[in-house]
């Protein structure tokens, strides 16, 4: 419970899309502060027009995404005591997205991509009018629903971070998580595999796992969302045996009864 104050020194990128530079600020801080607290102090004491997005300050809304010492992090969940005393901390905006001002970037790319994903389409209800799903079926999808849309995975993904031209044909990790959630939803009937392969560009991902490393919600993006989607794509488009099996089965195949899960290979 030491209330000793010491100074925090932060080098923050200040500027707009026409340019800018790093400015260094020093403000006093107290124990338990996070990077966002220091930025708020800088706003109150040094730079009232310093732009930063934030809302909940508890790691639940995913607004305060930025790059701290070159790591994609939430400002509100990065404690100051994780840095060496006196260390100058570099804070810059997410570099994958166009800058608006200071630490605020234009993340509309993500909202546009979200619009391209076909909606959830449930199968008919049970005979008793209920919807039954079992915990073992949804555990895997609930992990994906933890996503707070901080877009740090999008920021860190080199496919769009380093190759601007790929933005047209690549949805990014956040939306692979979303697509995986829909594809693995026990009630959903929409087929999005062609979209995942083509428009969402799953093949661009070379599973280097940076998205998983930066996820503040600890979603295993690569292992649990992207790779299972890649495997589904393989079955649908690349696996000759699966293709033969589909051809053979589709002749005498029966339609799945209501309430029965469709075999994924019959989704096409």
């Amino acid at each position: 419970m030491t209330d000793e104050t010491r100074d925090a020194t932060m080098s923050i990128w200040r500027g707009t899309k026409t340019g800018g530079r790093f400015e260094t600020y020093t403000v006093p801080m107290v124990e338990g502060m996070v990077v966002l607290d220091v930025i708020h102090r800088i706003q109150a004491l040094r730079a009232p027009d310093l732009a930063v997005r934030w809302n909940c300050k508890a790691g639940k809304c995913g607004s305060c995404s930025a790059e701290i010492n070159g790591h994609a992090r939430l400002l509100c969940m990065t404690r100051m005591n994780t840095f060496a005393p006196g260390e100058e901390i570099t804070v810059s905006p997410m570099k994958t997205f166009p800058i608006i001002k200071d630490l605020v970037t234009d993340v509309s790319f993500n909202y546009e991509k979200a619009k391209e994903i076909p909606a959830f389409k449930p199968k008919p209800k049970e005979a008793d009018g209920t919807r039954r799903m079992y915990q073992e079926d949804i555990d895997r999808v609930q992990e994906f629903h933890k996503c707070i849309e901080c877009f740090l995975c999008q920021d860190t993904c080199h496919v769009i971070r380093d190759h601007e031209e790929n933005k047209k044909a690549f949805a990014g990790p956040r939306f692979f998580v979303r697509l995986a959630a829909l594809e693995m939803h026990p009630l959903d009937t929409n087929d999005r595999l062609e979209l995942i392969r083509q428009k969402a560009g799953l093949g661009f991902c070379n599973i280097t796992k940076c998205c998983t490393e930066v996820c503040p919600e600890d979603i295993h993006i690569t292992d649990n969302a992207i790779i299972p989607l890649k495997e589904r794509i393989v079955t649908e488009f690349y696996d000759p045996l699966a293709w033969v099996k589909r051809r053979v089965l589709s002749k005498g195949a029966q339609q799945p009864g209501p309430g029965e899960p469709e075999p994924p290979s019959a989704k096409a």
Partner: protein
Amino acid sequence: MSKEGIERHDYDVIVVGAGGAGLRAAIEASAAGAHTALICKSLLGKAHTVMAEGGIAAALGNVWKEDNWRVHFRDTMRGGKLLNNWRMAQLHAQEAPDRVLELEEWGALFDRTSDGLILQRDFGGHRYARLAHVGDRTGLEMIRILQQHAVHKGIDVYMECTLQRLLTDGGKIAGAFGYWRESGKFVLFGARAVVLATGGGGKAWKITSNSWEYTGDGIAMALDAGTDLIDMEMVQFHPTGMVWPPSVRGLLVTEGVRGDGGMLTNNEGKRFMFDYIPEFFRADTAENEREADAWYEDKKNNRRTPDLLPRDEVARAINTEVKAGRGTPHGGVYLDIASRRSPEFIKKRLPSMYQQFKQLADVDITTTAMEIGPTCHYFMGGVRVEPETAAATVPGLFAAGEVAAGMHGANRLGGNSLSDLLVFGRRAGAGAAAYASRTNARAVDDAQVEAAARSMLAPFDGEGTENPYALHAELQETMQRLVGIIRTEAELQQAIATLDVLGERVDRVTVEGNRQFNPGWHLALDLRSMITVSKACARSALMRQESRGGHTRDDYQKADPEWGKKNVVTRKRGGQLELATEPLPQIPEELRQLVLAEEKQPA
């Protein structure tokens, strides 16, 4: 000002605020055929609804067959100390199950019972385990599902756009006016109907669970447009907010901790809540620890643990314990689930809480008790609405969610907020769409727009000396100290005087920089709403000379049956706040009997 060439959009219905209520209203209005826009201060999906943790209260009867809307209605009314608008509470209890099932229809994945239905959890003030939930991140699930549904319905969304004025034409709604946060440029919406879903104003307090968005803009705009506010004195202090470290003081700790078995103790290790059971709830509440613990498993033969009394009771009890010197080192009490549930159970049921304490306070809640204390959480009061359509007293204006009043009376039960958002969000959307379809577009009055624009740009004029951040800190200090959990006439008088001064000083606020994404300017504008709302709160609190729910007067410690029949109404006339009392709507006799009936004592 009009020379600027103000950007203008016209809609049948605009919905202000994109939390649960706003999204649900927009979906409904759009489905009813109204040309609808959704306008929000933050990015879509970041609204305060994401912070809701515990669950959505709805009498689905999946866990306890005995549960139904009547029990839920009774719990809600009793929790609200009978100050609720009975019809709202009834509609809410009746419709909440459908609204929850509707979310499932749109893709939500609630935790399941073993036979595949929606699992429900215990929460304060609810007779049965009633809250549909997703671990402790129910709000996130709800906002994401609604957000995706709204996007797929093609509703126009204006993000990071702050509205500052409702425009009226002959006393009826004509549109709204505000600015883009990104560019600072003005934007004008012509609209036949406006749905306010802007939440409360907890950011006027220092220790609060609310985010920066909670500045009471909707309440202030509605007041300026001429509408009635009610119950502005009713502010809920959530009993369990974090108390350490200082920078996260106030951050919410879900009631689900207690719902899942957590208990409150003081620094003597005593479960003090048994000393604070009020007469009103005595028949429903366990007398001893044995009964309280048995209740989690067997609700038929045991009564509810006092740890799960309604929030106002628990918050006051904690306040008293801390003042009596029985608090923790950081000025709270202990909330202990570590000694009562297994680490696996805690991590499965309360993953966000586990993370929150681990990351922000270096505390492992599976081995250590949490330190918690009350935090400003929720406005029960706000815009007075008509129950069926959520229409405010100004024609064309509708309100749903925290900005609206009546549903929760003097105190809201946990879990009733998310269901409120859905039930009345939908009703407001439908009401606004229906209103818009039978009214003509109103003319926008340029004079109103110009006056608003001039006032909004005033902080750039550079004549004043006030810093918005410093002024905000003073406001928070004032409200925390003088209009907190326990109130007295003298302190309220002092608060009102201070707020009057702050109200003058806010006109002298000056900001640096330009209009482009300038947080100092944004705060300067938000401060005006916060001060207005604070004034309404302090003055209403002074007027209500009794203690009831979220309003506790040290100088009037008892609930007064006469005051229990009245709402405090706030209006703005000629630029001045006017307060009055008006009688509550009369509750039908059979519902009154339902509410007052004593629960059967366990054998």
